[in-house]
């Protein structure tokens, strides 16, 4: 009974609840995903930077053979997925911080997510076509 008042009281506005804003639950998800993807991208980026440097001047046949190796294909797919996820999340934060008009901000965030998803799918398809 002592908590009856607390159970029926919220500091979140109805609009805030509808939009999923606030201090808990999915409110921290975006931030957390950015950190997790950045941590995963650290080893992947080191691997890709070294691989790209070693592929400098490689012919089409050599490049395709490198991509087709199963471990390279898998790591490339992981790099593609995580990179575009991290990029979309980062661009979203930048847009949310600097774009003032709500319709423009929402439209820009959706456009960035769409473009990132399509580019990720296109690169994944390219890797799979070479590897399979």
């Amino acid at each position: 009974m002592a908590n009856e008042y607390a159970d029926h009281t919220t500091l979140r506005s109805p609009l805030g609840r509808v939009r999923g804003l606030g201090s808990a639950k999915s409110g921290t998800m975006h931030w957390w995903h950015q950190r997790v993807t950045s941590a995963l991208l650290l080893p992947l980026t080191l691997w890709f930077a070294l691989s790209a440097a070693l592929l400098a001047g490689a012919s089409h046949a050599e490049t395709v053979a490198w991509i087709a190796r199963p471990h390279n294909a898998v790591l490339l797919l992981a790099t593609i997925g995580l990179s575009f996820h991290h990029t979309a999340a980062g661009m979203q934060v930048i847009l949310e911080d600097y774009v003032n008009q709500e319709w423009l901000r929402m439209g820009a965030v959706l456009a960035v997510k769409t473009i990132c998803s399509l580019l990720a799918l296109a690169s994944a398809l390219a890797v799979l076509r070479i590897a399979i």
Partner: protein
Amino acid sequence: MSIMQDGREATMVGRRTDGSTIKRPLSPHLQVYDMLQLTSALSISSRITGAAWGVGLGLLVWWLVAAASGPSAFATVQWFMSSWLGLLGLFGMTGAAWYHTLNGVRHLAWDAGYGYDIPSTYRSGRIVLVGTVVMTLLTWIIASIVWA
């Protein structure tokens, strides 16, 4: 007070002692903030290099899609990448990527609760700058040796 354009401005409304409303200043206060301190310059650079890397990902997509579509499309990519504009872009991209990566590690350390005091912040900032130069040059030295 002007009409609000943005719902978030509602959290920035204050009142003067006479009761009239006033719009509180937005932080960081760009008018009084020195954007050329090492700390703030590195902070905004992190965003800029992140956005630049996002553009650079387009090169990765182009490279992969061209490799999948065949030798002639791949030759076009190689022609561009080995042109002076392509090399300049790739070099800038390498620098931006290394900066964003190293400063990202700095941010992860902050998120874990380390290195918050001012001397540590400046020291880690300088390490990131030196690290960026070293790793960018190292990447291109490896690439040049392989290419030659």
